[in-house]
């Protein structure tokens, strides 16, 4: 499922999280790539919940229409202060922000 483009995300962060920017830090690579241990167990399918999730129409993912734009996935992006008072402080590490693909706004924050 498609997500907002980086330039759109940058604009949203710029407008809604003053003094912050998208981070270039790469947070943990896909654990299946071998860098990290694979999970030992997974969460079983909870159909009552999964049935409410809009998984989009994968077969039309390449043809972006106005209608499909409504169904963009949300983005979880790492964001960091532009000019941290103390770059060594843990509180200035990049943190994830949740940006709604539908509302084009930040709806949630790590922490």
């Amino acid at each position, binding site marked *: *499922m498609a*997500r907002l483009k980086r330039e759109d995300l940058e604009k949203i962060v710029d407008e809604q999280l003053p003094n912050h920017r998208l981070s270039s830090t790469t*947070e*943990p690579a*896909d*654990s299946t790539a*071998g*860098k*990290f*241990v*694979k*999970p*030992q*167990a*997974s*969460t*079983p*399918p*909870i159909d*009552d*919940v*999964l049935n*409410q*999730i*809009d*998984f989009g129409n994968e077969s039309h993912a390449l043809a972006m229409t106005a209608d499909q734009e409504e169904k*963009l*996935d*949300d*983005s*979880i*992006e*790492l964001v960091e202060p532009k*000019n*941290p*008072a*103390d*770059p*060594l*402080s*843990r*509180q*200035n*590490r990049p*943190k*994830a922000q*949740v940006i*709604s*693909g*539908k509302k084009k706004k*930040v*709806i*949630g*924050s*790590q*922490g």
Partner: protein
Amino acid sequence: MADVATVHLLDVGGFKYGDCVVCLFGKETVLIDGANPGNFEPQKGHKGLPEQISAVLNQSAKALHVSLLIVSHAHLDHIGSLPRMVSEGILTAEFALVADPDRGWGNTGDARPDAVLDDRSRQLVMSLREEMRSPLTRDDELRDFLSDATHLEDDYRAMLDTLKQKGTKVVRYGRDSHAQLVKRFDKVGMEILGPRKEHLEACADNVTKKLKDAVDFVSDMMRDDAVSSPVEAYRRMMTEDSDAADDKRAGNFVNLQSEVITFKVGEKRFFFAGDFQFNKPGTSNEVINAENARLQTEIAKRAPYAFYKLCHHGSDNGFSPKILTDLKSTKTFGICGGSDKHPDAQTIGILAKANVKWARTDVNRHCTFHIGAQTTSIDVDSGSLNDTSPPKKPDALTAPVPATPAPPVVLPRVERTGDDHVVEVTARVPHTRTRVTITIDVDPSPEDGRANPPEAVEHVPATSLQGFTADPAVSGLLIATNARKLANNIGADVANEVLGGLRAAGATVVDIAASDDAAVAAAPVQAELKRNARIKGVVLLGGYDVVPSHLLDALPQKLRTAVGSTGDPDNFIVWNDDVYADSNGDQLPDKPVSRIPDAHSPELVLAALSANRDGAAASSFGMRNINRPFADGVYTLLAQNAMLTSKESEFDNPGLVAGGDRVYIMLHGDYSDGSRFWGEETPNDREALNVTNVPKRAPAVVFTGCCWGALTVDRPAGRLAPGQPLVPKTPETSIALTFLRNGARAFIGCTGAHYSPREEPFNYFGGPMHNAFWSRVLKGANPAKALFDAKDEYLHAMPHGQTAPSSAAIEFKIWRQYTCLGLGW
């Protein structure tokens, strides 16, 4: 006849060097440096600095004021106790001439090369700015040293801010003009001879370069070393990698930033230059060497001196026969020493051959130089003048740490006596040669009423094996542990007593297999749950090395596929213990699960299971990140007063005690440092809360929305590399474990990063979980059961309107990662 001036070199005890000098020039009082952080408190027969300065200045030790405070350069053994003295309001000054922090820590601008390091590596990198410690240094001192070195810059910058706020005219040497300062102290002939700006810049550039080298070096070193504690890694650096490490040290370039200052009172001159390495600067840099030569010429021009403080604790890199010759008829020398290498034999040898007098604090302790118009005398607290003995070695030589673990110490037993104000403390200690420290803390009262401390209670948590009685709440619980591994971690005596006590109190104890696979370890627990339907909950007794936890993908496969790669810091993989309560094989828990991580601390285990936990009066404490207003709504369930917010509050606000019967914390956490939680817009970027804010008795239910707040090992599940061993956190490195050690019934938190809602009415992500938990606690549910039911409620309302896959994934993660630490019942 009255002295023209008096110079006091204060006693800095057994630390490895340290300068603290008080000069009385008529009415002007000058304090130069603050030795080490540990010199603030009295130690082993040596007075603390506030008390010594108080005696010298004839002022209250709680309100010391000097005309001029000088920080010679930005090293730990000179800045030392000053930040604490300033932050606690003990020390004020009219003027302060201080080392420029920007240059002291290098010209790195925003791009600090060490910003990418984890805490352990940063400690090692920052230690390379300082003098290397002796291999004989004790672990506790090394631990303090590494911690102090790491926090020094923050503390120092905060100190400068505080001084300014309190009206001190602060002059950063080489950065701000010092013209007004020199004019103010013209009466005492103050001259700052240097070093000049270009020299300072050259030093700062080299500090930066060394910092980068140190980051690379430590990164390489730690890449092969996933398990060592910072202390162990530092010891390795001192021994196996000492040559390589030495090349990365920036110490000389920090020393070379020392201000070179003289005073002239009447006809008497006084000389101070911190740790300037006049004799062996340790660099071929032309700018630096040219300035060194110029300074030596200027110093010689002003000789002789009535008093000359030898640079760098009497090291041979600060002194030489030529320098002594340049000083002409200078006869009186002072050395601020310590233990280990300095003063060097070469320096003492040079002095011994000359017709001079010297005193040294490592032998003579407090040294007082009375400089009169005609005569000079020296008073010392101990020993004789002109002592030529080598410096003492660190205490470890005289009190070696046993090579093999000593028999377990029976923890202090505390009993009330008939006198309401007195408790009796008894401790049994093995007769083998060992070191035992017993600390008795008395809870301070808050001074500003900002936080509600716990009500006075009649018992401390039972930490005595002899007095251990299991909490009656364990009746009906299933306790799962591996007895042998538990015994390895907390001692066989304690483990046996605890397990026996639990059985006697009605718990079912299941000894699980010694397996690293949670699914294997859980099998007998699941079987017992099937057999006995009356079990009300499962309590895992031990850390992950005793009772393994699952690396769990929080997402069902379909959602995992849809979400793909995101910025979630854990990749939606979390530590989870639900498998132990899955009696029907549906991969979901059928009973509440809680865990008491042993943290290798018998004290923690005993406190968490003790019957002697007293309930505090129903009081609440709440603290949140200023950008998490949703938490206010949750907190209204608990209390009528507002939560503390990070903008206004930080950990060292007077009286900040995260205590009470219900504690709710919504702050930032970090997986690499569980000892503190941060807010946003906190003054000077300091943490909002840390382990010191946990009351000594914590009979609380604690619920947190802090990232990794319930992580009890050094690695989040999503960041564990293949083959990488897990290192358990300790109460000292984890707020959660500190709460448990201090007797909390439960600490509820996340094993991964948490997410908060930003849009009103905040009924998604973490918000509904917080509300559901506290609602149940307020109805009387035990915290383990309250969390179990809250998760069930949360699941049935998922995805709380968040139908996009990535946001739904966050809800799955919150549901799976919330964990109950502690007994929970």
